[in-house]
């Protein structure tokens, strides 16, 4: 166990802490010692100052909108009697952002509402609709991130003991009064939590502002341009430090203040089934509103495969053709792109799943020195925007450790891409692993020890079978996250590797939407296939199935 811990600590230090530390070092140490010159220089650039306000403005608005829409969907799902179809729509909406690459909505937004947009130009006859910029980013990010809020808030609402609301109602409160005096106050920390999570996601998002931002630059895109366009690595490092500071501050508030508060106000046990609202004057408008919203989001996603079938988007719609799909493979080296992305993600996924299981096992079940460090660093990585990590890896590994040349061999190889994939998926995997392990009653394992099993036997015969499902879903999540990743990868990829997401981004920027759509469609099929495969596997071999049968 000792070696495992040492290796883990070394890995986390080298690939999470060190790249972040080197950013700080780089931007603070000039040729002759400590200096604030780099920071002074970047804050002197008005483009950078504007990028900060842009980013915060977008993050704030997206956070608010996503939280509100998420709350509406969650409330309707938990409190209102609705048809099964509507529930199905909700599930699809919450699933889509998971399986699709992060920027497809930008593509469909441009294709539907852009200058040559299907809706704007052909349905409404507007020729100069400018979707690029602030509103484009806000709309697309809101549609991408509100499902996350919806899932979070749904969980919280389900944990509110319905008796509490019944007590309020019993003492004379109207439904609205119940909502404002009981439900909302209980949910408030959770809403703050959802807001901050979305805020962080929004300001860390790279691909959407890149594609639909136009001249509206955010921090993530500014950093990218600073390093790829202006070739100013020190400046980019300093900018990355600024971005990191913002997300870390948000993350600290969310983690150590709001999450604790959420836990304190929600009892976490529902004593009985909630009575659903059946009053038609409430259910019908709410269901219709949410269904329309959900259908709109789904249509946006569907627009991508359809866009790949039109001969020329915006000009020629018939006959539908597969020529773009063919060109992906014949002209644009699609096979290599898919192979590279697929293979690298396939290598990264099991490593991530295994690492996060080991980390969560150690954190939950063992006591050792350095445990706090391991937990903190692997969770901290969640707050690190991909762009920041990318810049950190460039600064940290391009010339070797601390620019000494040691380990510089991994820079530009597939290995560093795999490592980035692992580091980017590790926090989510660890978090779900920890919560899965915490659910196992300690006495179950103790009884196995008691009957003479050693710790390895206990792990393999009791713990592992119980967390099998969680491990499996961690595996698939890691795979999906890796194959759809872009923000850190785009800074580190070299011409010897073609990655799908990078390709899509390139084509989208060039305005070749049909080919971008064809790539994106195939990518979505792959990720969706992986998720489907996982669900099938869990259904037939998972632990939950056996438990259900026993019942």
């Amino acid at each position, binding site marked *: 166990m000792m070696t495992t811990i040492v290796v883990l600590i070394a890995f986390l230090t080298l690939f999470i802490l060190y790249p972040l530390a080197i950013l700080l070092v780089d931007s603070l140490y000039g040729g002759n010692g400590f200096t604030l010159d780099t920071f002074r220089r970047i804050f002197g650039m008005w483009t950078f100052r504007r990028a900060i306000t842009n980013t915060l403005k977008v993050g704030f608005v997206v956070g608010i909108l996503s939280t509100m829409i998420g709350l509406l969907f969650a409330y309707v799902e938990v409190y209102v009697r609705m048809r099964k179809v509507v529930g199905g729509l909700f599930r699809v909406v919450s699933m889509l952002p998971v399986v699709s690459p992060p920027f497809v909505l930008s593509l469909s937004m441009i294709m539907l509402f852009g200058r040559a947009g299907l809706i704007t130009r052909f349905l409404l006859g507007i020729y100069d609709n400018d979707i690029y910029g602030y509103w484009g980013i806000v709309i697309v990010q809101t549609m991408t991130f509100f499902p996350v809020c919806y899932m979070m808030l749904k969980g919280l609402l389900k944990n509110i*003991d319905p*008796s*509490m609301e*019944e*007590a*309020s*109602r*019993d*003492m*004379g*409160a*109207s439904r609205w*009064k119940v909502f404002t*005096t*009981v439900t909302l*106050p*209980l949910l408030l920390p959770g809403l703050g939590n959802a807001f901050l999570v979305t805020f962080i996601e929004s300001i860390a998002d790279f691909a959407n502002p890149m594609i639909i931002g136009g001249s509206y630059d955010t921090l993530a895109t500014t950093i990218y341009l600073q390093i790829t366009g202006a070739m100013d690595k020190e400046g980019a490092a300093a900018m990355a430090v600024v971005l990191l500071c913002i997300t870390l501050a948000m993350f600290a508030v969310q983690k150590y203040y709001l999450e604790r508060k959420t836990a*304190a*106000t*929600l*009892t976490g*046990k529902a*004593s009985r089934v909630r*009575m659903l609202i059946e009053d038609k004057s409430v259910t019908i408008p709410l269901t219709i509103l949410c269904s329309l919203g959900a259908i709109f989001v789904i249509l946006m996603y569907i627009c991508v495969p359809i866009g790949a079938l039109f001969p020329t988007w915006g000009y020629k719609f018939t006959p539908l053709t597969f020529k773009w799909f063919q060109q992906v493979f014949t002209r644009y080296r699609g096979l290599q792109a898919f192979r590279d992305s697929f293979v690298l993600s396939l290598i990264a996924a099991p490593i991530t799943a295994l690492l996060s299981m080991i980390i969560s096992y150690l954190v939950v079940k063992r006591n050792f020195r350095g445990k706090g460090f391991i937990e903190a660093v692997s969770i901290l990585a969640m707050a690190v925007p991909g762009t920041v990590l990318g810049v950190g890896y460039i600064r940290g590994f391009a010339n070797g450790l601390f620019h000494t040349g040691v380990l510089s061999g991994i820079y530009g190889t597939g290995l560093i891409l795999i490592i980035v994939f692992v580091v980017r998926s590790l926090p989510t995997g660890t978090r779900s692993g920890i919560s899965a392990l915490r659910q196992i009653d300690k006495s179950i394992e103790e009884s196995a020890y008691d009957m003479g099993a050693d710790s390895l036997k206990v792990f393999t015969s009791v713990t592992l079978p119980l967390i099998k499902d969680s491990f499996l879903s961690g595996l698939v999540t890691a795979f999906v996250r890796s194959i759809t990743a872009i923000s850190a990868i785009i800074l580190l990829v070299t011409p010897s590797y073609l990655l799908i997401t990078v390709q899509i981004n390139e084509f989208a920027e060039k305005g070749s939407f049909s080919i971008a759509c064809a790539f994106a469609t195939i990518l979505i099929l792959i990720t969706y296939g992986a998720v489907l495969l996982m669900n099938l596997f869990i259904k037939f071999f998972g632990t939950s199935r056996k438990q259900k049968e026993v019942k």
Partner: protein
Amino acid sequence: MADMKVKQPKGVKLDHISKIYKDPKTGKDFYAVHDVALDITPGSFVTLLGPSGCGKTTTLRMIAGFESPDEGEIYLGGEPINALTPNKRDTAMVFQSYALFPHYNVFDNVAYGLKLRKVPKNEIRDRVEKILSLVELSGMEQRMTNQLSGGQQQRVALARALVVEPGVLLFDEPLSNLDAKLRVQMRTEIRRIQQALGITAVYVTHDQSEAMAISDQIILMKQGVIAQMGSPMEIYYKPNSEFVADFIGECNFLHGKVSENAEKGAIVSLPAGKVAVRTEKKRTSGEACEIVLRPEAITIGDEGMLPCWVELSCFMGSYQNYHVRVGEELVKITDNCPLNKKIFNTGDRAYISFDPECAHLL
């Protein structure tokens, strides 16, 4: 405490109400509550008792308005209330999980209903203070609910319901989350407060001893229908079915045939012998019947009415516990204060006797 009497305790009348649910597995409709008719007099304490799934909680929630009856009408203080939503009904409920608001302190929890009623601030303070002293929580106003023990939370829940002076007070298994000792203490407390205020109370529980200790009337339910209603003593000594007899306290059943009618009773012939039993109903001779005997109503001795073999003899402190075989049937006996009595041992031959007044014929 005289000034705290509720102004107007209300009666509750359930006029043949039914509730139909869909079985989630089979998809078939079934009656969760079937044709329950009940008239609760103002100021009385009525308990709905029964095993889980008998419809007692559903009945209570229909009175509160969280469920609406599919058949029948509910009256509160003579007014039909089926059409009223829970917030418009003059009821207040104490929940099994207490359902205290974790974001409010004790004072705000109790004052909640009064604030909704727009009671002036001064009056709210006075009333909350008074009710908190009644449930012996004075000085705890500023505590948050998670700083209270289970028993204290229970009292806050009770105070919160009482302070709005409802026409009827509803209890949904309020003591089931407390430990045994506290449970006994709290039920005495609830009964004391109910009597002091003269409030109507409907109380749901599955604990028969709780029901006995606390109620004016017990309504025993089984599979959605009322099995029997009456005072605790009636239910205990004059059960109308094997189910009721068995559910309330421990019970022995002796199966036999009515051999002849006697004055104010019957002679029952059992395989082990003939015994006289008191019964109000005329029985025809030859009819199969059961004698219901409570364990403490039977005495054991060297001579008596029916011979038996002792199969188990166990000292329990306040009583000696016997299991004896009478003919084919097992009979349990609790023999109180065994110190100066003869103790029979396993395998001994003995006789049992009982007072015909204490035996009940089914």
